[in-house]
């Protein structure tokens, strides 16, 4: 019997498979398709202080082995998430959740983190730092080590729950950002967020997406994710939740060998609503195939 459990900051997960934020709503809608309680955890839809409609449509562009999205953090706002969405999800999912929060200022991160800190269902707070800082000239928090560190420090100061910083790959040296957030008390790292991309419609000769650019995800970015996780694993001593184009049990094993303690599945949920279930069910056999008795033993095994 293969042991596919893993641990994130003391929280034991039955398996390392977690649907990634923004690809799984608030989870309960997938309960129509299968028992979502099999999931290792759920990283729910990125939540901001205020309700957001998000960006204009079209928000989606297809790519070879992936897609670009520019949803723009559409969500009902932290109050409604805490008071309505999470209690509804609690009917279907009984394990600790990963609360994905976003902000356009340090105050917004602080507010969202405080609200999530008070929710028993939340096991980990995952902080998306890819948003532009409205007080910093619109430059993303995640592309500057000092700005990223300031978010980590702010969130760390208002919660006792583990804080995972979700890193953007759109930087020169991701290890510098990883070290900076670790130094300010981050308990872990989620990586990678989407790669900035664009498609142009040859008929209209204009960008497909209304917002012109968006986040590129899907199997095409898997090698980039694998490489960056490998690099960050060597740079820090905190656990990594790996993600980026994962669509199979083999992919999960590969990112864990690179250094991930758990793995999120994103884009694949959008083309196969059963993606996480399929991967979880395939993991034991895949482990046996590669001679793995205890999956967590292989974390960072490629180094």
């Amino acid at each position: 019997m293969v042991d596919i459990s893993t641990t994130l900051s003391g929280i034991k997960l039955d398996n390392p498979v977690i649907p990634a934020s923004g690809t799984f709503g608030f989870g309960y809608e997938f309960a129509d398709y299968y028992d979502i309680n099999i999931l290792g955890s759920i990283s729910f839809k990125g939540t901001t202080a205020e309700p957001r409609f998000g960006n204009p449509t079209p928000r989606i562009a297809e790519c070879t082995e992936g897609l670009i999205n520019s949803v723009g953090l559409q969500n009902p706002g932290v109050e409604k998430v805490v008071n309505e969405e999470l209690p509804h999800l609690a009917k279907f999912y009984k394990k600790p959740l990963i609360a994905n929060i976003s902000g356009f200022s340090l105050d917004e991160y602080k507010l969202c983190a405080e609200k999530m800190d008070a929710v028993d269902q939340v096991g980990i707070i995952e902080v998306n730092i890819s948003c532009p800082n409205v007080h910093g000239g619109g430059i993303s928090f995640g592309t500057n080590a000092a700005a990223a560190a300031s978010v980590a420090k702010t969130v760390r100061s208002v919660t006792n729950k583990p804080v995972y910083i979700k890193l953007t790959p759109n930087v020169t040296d991701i290890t510098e950002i990883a070290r900076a957030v670790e130094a300010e008390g981050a308990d872990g790292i989620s990586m990678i967020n989407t790669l900035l991309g664009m498609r142009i419609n040859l008929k209209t000769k204009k960008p497909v997406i209304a917002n012109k650019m968006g986040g590129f995800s899907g199997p095409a970015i898997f090698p980039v994710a694998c490489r960056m996780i490998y690099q960050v694993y060597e740079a820090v001593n905190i656990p990594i939740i790996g993600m980026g184009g994962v669509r199979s049990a083999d992919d999960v094993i590969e990112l864990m060998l690179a250094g991930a303690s758990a793995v999120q599945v994103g884009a694949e949920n959008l083309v196969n609503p059963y993606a996480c279930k399929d991967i979880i069910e395939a993991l034991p056999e895949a482990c046996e195939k590669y001679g793995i008795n205890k999956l967590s033993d292989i974390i960072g095994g490629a180094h």
Partner: protein
Amino acid sequence: MNKGIYKIIENKCIAPMVYKMVLSGDVSHITAPGQFINIALEGFYLRRPISVHDVDREAGTVTVIYKVVGRGTEAMMNMTEGELDVLTGLGNGFDTSLSGDHAVVIGGGVGVPPMFLLAKELIAEGKKVTAILGFNKKEEIFCEDDFKAIGADVIVATADGSYGVKGFVTNALETVEAPTFYYACGPEPMLKALYNASELDGQLSFEERMGCGFGACMGCSCKTKYGNKRICKEGPVLRKGEIIW
């Protein structure tokens, strides 16, 4: 929603660059006219959402009619056999209980196909149905005989006047006597023109570029008078009174 493997029974050209595909498989999740199916195509990452034209519950087949508009539908047009991974029963379809006793079903171009199953169900409920089918020109017309065969009164409108009523579906709607409700699917300018041209209440089916097609990604959101809705989940059919242009 159901995810299943569907066998291609037929795939034939019925008008220039317009194809009719019949798929065999579990159709039990298709519960209302105006819903769509989402087809996975080899070599393409995202599925192709296509509205349901007809369902044969006894034979277990679902029919879609699609226009070749890009690389995905180009790949589809050459398929003659084989199996496809399809999600069925997606979206919130038309509500036949709203129709009153004389429903007008209005389709423009590739907005025509979903109106067929709707017309069929309305007629089965004993209602009078007038079908207005809008096309650019005579050569592009399809499905006219199908609507006639199920007992609908059919008015074809062509923009260039080469067949039927000259002009748009709005011009044709003016000629319908005592309609009680309308249902429409077509390009957004057509829907907006209908919305503005008639006092009649109706349900309108919208199109948007989708990521997943089942409500997970928020790619196709729109604003309505009653809050944000997802075209793939709460739509594609919206009630006239909730639409914000």
